[in-house]
């Protein structure tokens, strides 16, 4: 059981370049999330999705876009990368309908992104 898988694991971008981070989960979870982790700030929510075809803004959405065309995948896009987006990005998912898993978020291993 793979759980939550993030690709790529590492990436270096130049300012202004674009890229897409992929998150895939095989647990049939309804909700998915993208966070960024910066030193001394914990994890902050960028965007989230409560189901296929729906997304919403989190705490720090500026400069990012997301899409959830399939239930198992949640994509995070950077259209024009900036040095301030250098961070570690985590994807998570959670179940809504399965009682024992409800409200527990399962995390991927992260993507370390550097923007030069």
């Amino acid at each position, binding site marked *: 059981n793979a759980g939550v898988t993030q690709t790529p694991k590492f990436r270096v971008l130049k300012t202004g370049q674009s890229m897409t981070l992929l998150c895939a989960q095989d647990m049939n979870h309804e909700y998915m999330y993208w966070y960024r982790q910066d030193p001394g700030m914990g994890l902050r929510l960028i965007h989230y999705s409560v189901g296929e075809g729906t997304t919403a803004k989190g705490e720090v959405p500026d400069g990012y876009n997301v899409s959830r065309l399939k239930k198992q995948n949640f994509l995070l896009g950077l259209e024009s990368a900036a040095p301030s987006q250098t961070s570690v990005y985590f994807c998570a998912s959670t179940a809504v309908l399965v009682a024992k898993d409800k*409200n527990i978020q399962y995390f991927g*291993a992260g993507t370390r992104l550097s923007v030069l």
Partner: protein
Amino acid sequence: AQSVTQPDIHITVSEGASLELRCNYSYGATPYLFWYVQSPGQGLQLLLKYFSGDTLVQGIKGFEAEFKRSQSSFNLRKPSVHWSDAAEYFCAVGSQFSGGYNKLIFGAGTRLAVHP
């Protein structure tokens, strides 16, 4: 607004010593509370959770936490620390939306170092 405070940024303990990591939260209703651990270069792993009932909860790896409503605290404890416990620890509170506690607010984290 909901918030989580972890007062200690860094803690160093000797192997075999006891450990207590502090967490204080601000939340208007009965909270869902979590402790996650992040080993270097890894994603977040759930240690334990409190949803309701017994205020002393047991988790994986020999950790426990106690919910104290009067102090708005959810401190993590372990009686004897092992070198493999060196990691960063995050406390989080579940924020209700869409009918469930599905949005997490994280503290800034406490980095634990273990001396042999």
